[in-house]
C-alpha cells in the first residue's frame, strides 16, 4: 500500500509539473470567478426559470450545469491529452529499469500510476465544481449537496478513459495511440452507440446487426451517458434510476486495467 501511495503522490507531482493540468486549474478558477461575477450582475436563474414553468430549483441546477458542462468537457479533453504521456514516460529506458529495481511489484506500479492520474483530475474537477456550487449556494441560499456528487461521475468518466490510455501506453510505449482511442471512445463511439442502441436499434429488422449493436453498446464504456444523463440526474437530486451504464463501464475499466497489468507483468524493458 505504501508503494502505491508513493507512486500515486509522485504521479500527482508529475501531473502538476505539466502545464496542461495547471491550465485546467486556472480555467476552473477563472470559471468560478466568472460565475460569481455574472451572478452578481444578472439574475440569470430568474430568466431561465421562466422556461421551466417556474420550477426555480430545476432552473437553478440547469444554470449551474450550463457553466460546468463545457468546462468539464474541456477539462476531460485536456486531462486525456496530458495524462497520455504518463505511462510512456515511465516506460522510458533508464526510468523503468530503476523503478523495477526497487521492491515494488509491477501491479503496484500500474495501480499507483492509475490512482495518481485519477487523483489529479479529481482535484481539478473538485475545485471547479465546489467553486461554482459555493458561488450559487451563497447567492441563492440553496444548498443542493447532491450537486457535489457529479464530481465523482465526471472523475469516473476520466478514470475509464485513463484505463484505455494506460493499456495502449503499455502496448505501444507511445502516448498518441492511447490518446486517440480515448478521444474516439469519448467523442464518437460512446455517443454513437447510445444513439444506435436507443434510437435506431428498435427500427432494425436484422437480428445479427441488432445483436452486434447490443454487444458493442454493453461492451464499450458509456461515457456520454455518465457525463450527460446520469450527471444531470444526480445534480437535480433525482438519484440514479438505472445503474447499468455505470456498472458496465466499471466492468470495462476493471477489464482494461486488468489486461494492462497482465501485459505489464510479462513485459521486458
Amino acid at each position, binding site marked *: 500500500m505504501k*508503494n502505491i501511495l*508513493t507512486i500515486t503522490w509522485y504521479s500527482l*507531482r508529475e501531473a502538476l*509539473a505539466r502545464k496542461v493540468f495547471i491550465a485546467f486549474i486556472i480555467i476552473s478558477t477563472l470559471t468560478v470567478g466568472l460565475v460569481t461575477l455574472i451572478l452578481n450582475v444578472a439574475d440569470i436563474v430568474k430568466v431561465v426559470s421562466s422556461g421551466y414553468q417556474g420550477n426555480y430549483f430545476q432552473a437553478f441546477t440547469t444554470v449551474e450545469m450550463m457553466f460546468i458542462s463545457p468546462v468539464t468537457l474541456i477539462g476531460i479533453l485536456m486531462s486525456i491529452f496530458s495524462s497520455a504521456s504518463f505511462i510512456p514516460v515511465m516506460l522510458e529506458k533508464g526510468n523503468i*529499469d*530503476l523503478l*523495477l*529495481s526497487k*521492491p515494488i511489484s509491477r501491479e503496484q506500479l500500474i495501480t499507483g500510476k492509475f490512482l495518481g492520474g485519477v487523483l489529479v483530475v479529481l482535484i481539478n474537477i473538485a475545485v471547479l465544481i465546489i467553486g461554482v456550487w459555493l458561488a450559487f449556494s451563497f447567492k441563492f441560499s440553496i444548498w443542493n449537496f447532491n450537486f457535489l456528487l457529479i464530481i465523482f461521475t465526471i472523475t469516473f468518466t476520466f478514470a475509464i478513459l485513463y484505463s484505455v490510455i494506460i493499456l495502449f501506453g503499455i502496448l505501444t510505449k507511445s502516448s498518441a495511440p492511447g490518446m486517440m482511442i480515448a478521444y474516439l471512445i469519448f467523442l464518437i463511439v460512446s455517443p454513437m452507440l447510445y444513439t444506435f442502441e436507443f434510437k435506431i436499434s428498435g427500427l432494425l429488422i436484422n437480428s445479427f446487426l441488432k445483436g452486434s449493436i447490443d454487444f458493442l453498446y454493453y461492451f464499450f464504456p458509456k461515457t456520454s451517458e455518465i457525463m450527460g444523463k446520469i450527471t444531470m440526474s444526480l445534480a437535480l437530486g433525482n438519484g440514479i434510476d438505472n445503474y447499468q451504464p455505470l456498472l458496465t463501464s466499471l466492468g470495462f475499466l476493471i477489464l482494461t486495467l486488468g489486461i494492462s497489468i497482465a501485459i505489464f507483468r510479462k513485459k*521486458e524493458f
Partner: protein
Amino acid sequence: MNAIEINSLTKVYSSSFNKKQTMALQNFSLNVTEGTIFGLLGPNGAGKTTLIKLLLGIIFPTNGTAKILNYYIHEYKIKSRVGYLPENHKYPSYLKGKEVLDFYGKLSGMSGSSLKIKIDEMLELVNLSKWGKTKIKNYSKGMMQRLGLAQALLNDPDLIFLDEPTDGVDPIGRKEIRDILLNLKQRKKTIFLNSHLLSEVELLTDRVGILNKGKLIREGTVNELTQKKQEYKLSIEGENAEQIIKDFDNRISFVNSGNGYYNLKVSDSVQLNMVLDVLRNNGIIIKEMVQQKDSLEDIFISLIQESEKKELQ
C-alpha cells in the same frame, strides 16, 4: 556465502516481426562471494546489462535460475536490500536532487526522519550537498551520475549493481567514486560492477569476469588473469653472465633486454629453479626477479579476439 548465485542462465530475445532470435546470454553460471567487488567486462553487446537486468527482474530468463542474497530473482521484496545504478538512468526532470532521493528511498521501503537523515548523508557522500534543492534538469552529466550513485546507496544495500558508474565523471570524481566503493567493500558490501574502464576494474575488483556474446569466457582474480605463466624479468650481475646464459639449452628463453635486465621464459617451476641454481653456482648475483604480467587490457583484447576466432571456426 554467495551474494549472487547464477545457474545456467540463458536469455534469448525473439523478434516478433521476423522471428529472429538473439542469444543475449548463454548458459551463464557464476557465483559472487559476499563482501567482494566483482567486475564484469565485455565489449558492447556482450550481455553485461542483460545479466544485471535479469538479476533485478527487469527482464526474464529463457532458461536457468539465479539467486541474489539467497532469494530467487522473481521475489521482488529482496530488492529492498539491493541498490542499482543503471547505465543511462533517467530521473523526473521536474524534481530536485533531494526529491529524487526521497522518491526512490520511499520506494525502497524507507520513510520519515531516517530517510531525511540518509538523504543528507548521501548528498554529502557524493559531494552534492549544495545541489540538493536544485532541480535536476540543471545538473551536469557528472552530477547526475553522482546523484545516481547516492540513489543506489540510499537504502544501505547489501548488494549493489553499478553499470558504468564513472561514465561522464571527471578524473577527480572518478577517484572519489572509487574511494566510496572501496569503503563499501570494507563494510562488507557486495558490489557487482559493469565497466568499460579496465584500469578502474583493475584497481577495484577482487574478481573479474570477461563476457563475450553472452558467454563467460574467463573468470578469476585480476592477478590470475594477468599473470604470464612462467615469464620473469631478472636483474643479474656477474662477470661471465652472458656466457652462462648462452649455455642454456633451447627450451629456455633467456634474452638480454638491456641495463642488466633479462627476460626469462621457462616451461615450469622445476626448470626455473634449475636456471636459478646454475646462475648461483656460477657466482651470478640475482638482484631482482619479478614475474611478468599482462595488463588487464592486453588480456581482455586477446581473450575477446580468441573467442571471436573460435566463433568463426
